[in-house]
């Protein structure tokens, strides 16, 4: 593998600014790797080779002082295909948006490009971000770079696999119930769910608007901090955008004196490797000076149930816009309602239909109070539960997922079993809290990870703990991609 592809984001910016590497060389190295491995691993749905190459040439022509003003000068990034861009297509992994060409850029894309980043392409995802394996993409699954017989997680599986497999230096994902953190954990990279409202959702194709958040997927915690600083900040085009300045980037990595919450119990079914990894890491953090405090997370099983009422309910409303009239695919039929029914029947895949049906049921007359009403009350109890925990601890260190990358096809016929993969991630979206998944090495050839959870707007603290975890963990090697994929 070319040494260029081993540079972290921070190292790459230093190299391109100094001129020791041109942005064209860097982009070309990534495009060449995409050319070799995107076919077998199915990571990017669209490669924007022409615009990326052209942008690299433009950036190469900048003066030294102009380069220094761009915090992401020459950084190749991949963008999840539910974020719109004014070039290429945006499918959200769905047939109903096949060939859709958005007329504008998402705020996050605009901010990254303004900071000097170069978009290499759009990454695969579960249809409309609904899934935990990328197997629900209408365009076929992405394979895990560590073991192509296993899933990369989801729904941002393409973004996580791109960063892990060195098909991109960094990537954007979206996280509604774990869709950045779970694939990051499965692929051995860093994934951040920012505080709700920290990053603009303008230009993110809506799944569940009170839960959706855009975040970075990177190889190191420092890289995630640099990206978040560029992505974050108030955007008048998103009604839920916080009037908070972007967080500062530091290199602090000490956990001395911090009170870290660790779980006093685990529900049944948590993989012993996950527990052992976490125990090992929390001992290392204690050795580094952190004080460990036992905590009970707000009931994860109840959080999961509440999430799978609220998210589908919001999705059923958000996805009502796909009706074959203003954009996307259309299936002609006699009469307006038949046009809607036929277009949606042909355009949506099975899991999206499951969720639209579930959400419509939960909001329907006679069942609203029993399902949606109770779920929103549980949501409040969960948020209150976290408030109480954060009176006693500074942050929580817990699993990202209860399990490890599972074989392709294993859970497709059992939706609840698929949903269980989100056991430790959904409650943060319900409460609007930030969470950082940090890889801690390989076990039996597959990545393992831990999650750090903090109060609202505590991302700098999460990065600090994340750096300490990185230092205590075994370094992550690069996966050995096979040109034949799973063959």
């Amino acid at each position, binding site marked *: 593998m070319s040494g260029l592809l081993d540079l972290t984001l921070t190292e790459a910016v230093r190299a391109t600014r100094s001129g020791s590497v041109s942005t064209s060389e860097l982009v070309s190295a990534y495009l060449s790797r995409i050319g070799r491995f995107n076919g077998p691993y199915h990571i990017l749905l669209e490669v924007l080779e022409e615009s990326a190459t052209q942008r690299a040439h433009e950036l190469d022509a900048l003066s030294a002082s102009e380069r220094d003003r761009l915090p992401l000068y020459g950084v190749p990034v991949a963008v999840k295909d539910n974020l719109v861009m004014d070039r290429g297509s945006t499918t959200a992994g769905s047939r109903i948006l096949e060939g*859709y060409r958005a*007329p*504008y850029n998402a705020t996050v894309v605009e901010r990254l490009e303004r900071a000097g980043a170069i978009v290499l392409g759009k990454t695969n995802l579960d249809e409309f971000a609904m899934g935990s394996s990328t197997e629900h993409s209408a365009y076929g699954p992405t394979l895990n770079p560590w073991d192509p017989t296993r899933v990369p997680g989801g729904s941002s599986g393409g973004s996580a696999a791109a960063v892990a497999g060195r098909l991109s230096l960094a990537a954007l994902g979206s996280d509604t119930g774990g869709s950045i953190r779970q694939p990051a954990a499965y692929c051995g990279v860093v994934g951040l769910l920012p505080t709700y*409202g920290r990053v603009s959702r303008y230009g993110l194709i809506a799944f569940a608007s*009170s839960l959706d958040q855009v975040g970075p997927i990177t190889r190191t915690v420092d890289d995630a901090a640099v990206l978040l600083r560029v992505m974050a900040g108030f955007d*008048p085009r998103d*009604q*839920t955008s*916080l009037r908070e300045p972007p967080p500062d980037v530091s290199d602090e990595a000490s956990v001395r004196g911090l009170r870290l919450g660790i779980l006093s119990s685990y529900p049944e079914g948590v993989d012993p490797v996950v527990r052992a990894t976490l125990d090992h890491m929390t001992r290392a953090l204690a050795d580094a000076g952190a004080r460990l405090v036992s905590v009970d997370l707000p*009931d994860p*099983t*109840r959080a*999961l*149930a*509440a999430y*799978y*009422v609220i998210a589908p309910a919001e999705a059923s409303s958000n996805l*009502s816009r796909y*009706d074959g*009239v*203003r*954009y*996307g*695919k*259309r299936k002609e*039929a*006699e*009469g*307006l309602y*038949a*046009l809607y*029914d*036929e277009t*949606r*029947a042909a355009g949506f895949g*099975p899991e999206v*239909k*499951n969720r*639209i*049906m*579930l959400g*419509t*049921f939960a909001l*329907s007359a006679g069942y609203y109070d*029993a*399902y949606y*009403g*109770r*779920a*929103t*009350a*549980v*949501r*409040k*109890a969960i*948020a209150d539960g976290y408030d109480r925990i954060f009176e006693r601890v500074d942050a929580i260190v817990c699993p990202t997922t209860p399990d490890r990358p599972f074989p392709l096809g294993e859970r497709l016929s059992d*939706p*609840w079993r698929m*949903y269980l993969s989100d056991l430790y991630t959904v409650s943060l979206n319900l409460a*609007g809290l930030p969470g950082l998944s940090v890889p801690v090495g390989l076990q039996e050839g597959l990545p393992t990870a831990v999650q750090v959870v903090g109060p609202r707007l505590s991302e700098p603290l999460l990065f600090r703990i994340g750096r300490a975890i990185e230092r205590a963990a075994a370094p992550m090697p690069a996966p050995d991609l096979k040109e034949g994929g799973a063959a």
Partner: protein
Amino acid sequence: MRLSHEDVEHVAALARVRLTPQERERMVEVLSSVLGHMEVLGDEMAGERPLSTDRINVLARLREDRPCPIQDSGRLLALGPNTRAGQFVVPRIVQDI
């Protein structure tokens, strides 16, 4: 809770999704199974104040009401699968008398 075929058909009509007989069969099983796991939401939560009324909406704010540039209508119309004379074409919904 176990849903019947009629329940699924009713919800599909509300959701504006036409299901094939096989999909309807599958949906009865999938929805009934998932709803079974929702029982943990618990009766004691009935009547509790939901989150949406306080914590999430506090984030929402209205922007100043002033004119701003919008997308060119020609570009937006170009996205439509069937357009004519600057308008989206839909099947006739009002019949001639």
